[in-house]
């Protein structure tokens, strides 16, 4: 009985590790896009992904043929949506926001980021995205269109928000 438990545990851990080795890079990129952090400084994205992967691990034996990647993505989206207010607080004057506001999608709201990443980066169908986000499909389409317009209207390199003196800008 105990032996069976341990062999099952070992098998699960082995399968899970090979899954993370394969999908980890793409998932971490998606998480970093969501939190709008820089690729080399993304503690929130890492925390988010670790929690989503942990949930996937906890359900590993009950996936029953479901794609673990779908499961992790769903968990990532749900956790991001739940904690979005933490990523959306207004900047406090005098306090730097070290990990936010610098990433690629920093100009978008968390909701726009979530929908854009799900639709374009992950290629999730509109109806599924709507179900994940909890909005009607036409709202999802409208938000996605708006996000695309915002992304195209501003230059790809994030501008410095406070417009520092020329020559000081990074």
């Amino acid at each position: 009985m105990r032996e069976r438990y341990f062999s099952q545990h070992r098998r699960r851990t082995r399968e899970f590790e090979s899954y993370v080795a394969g999908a980890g890079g793409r998932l971490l990129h998606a998480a970093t896009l969501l939190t709008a952090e820089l690729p080399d400084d993304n503690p929130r994205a890492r925390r988010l992904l670790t929690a989503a992967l942990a949930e996937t691990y906890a359900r590993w034996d009950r996936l029953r043929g479901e794609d673990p990647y779908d499961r992790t993505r769903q968990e990532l989206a749900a956790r991001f949506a739940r904690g979005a207010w933490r990523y959306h607080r207004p900047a406090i004057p005098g306090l730097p926001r070290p990990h936010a506001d610098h990433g690629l999608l920093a100009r978008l709201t968390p909701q726009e980021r979530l929908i854009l990443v799900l639709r374009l980066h992950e290629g999730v169908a509109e109806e599924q995205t709507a179900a994940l986000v909890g909005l009607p499909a036409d709202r999802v389409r409208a938000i996605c269109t708006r996000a695309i317009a915002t992304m195209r209207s501003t230059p790809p390199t994030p501008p410095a928000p406070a417009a520092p003196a020329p020559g000081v800008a990074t």
Partner: protein
Amino acid sequence: MRTPDRKTAEVRHLLEGGPHPAVPAELAAQAAELGLRMLHRRRVVRRTLWLLLAVAVIVFLVWASIAQPWVAPPSTVTPPVDGL
């Protein structure tokens, strides 16, 4: 004039391109550890709830067998007897 598809592809390219974050080596191990803890915690919660349910059922059965609420209490009002 650019079609919406073209714009979508442009932004998709923007998302896909750019530097990708490096995956920390301990990611899988950390997630597995956290997931194992979740699994244990859930099992403890589930067992506690089942235990609580079992105790509640036993308490109810003992009480019911002692109190026997389905037995009608003996009538304290005797109807008047006449015609005998």
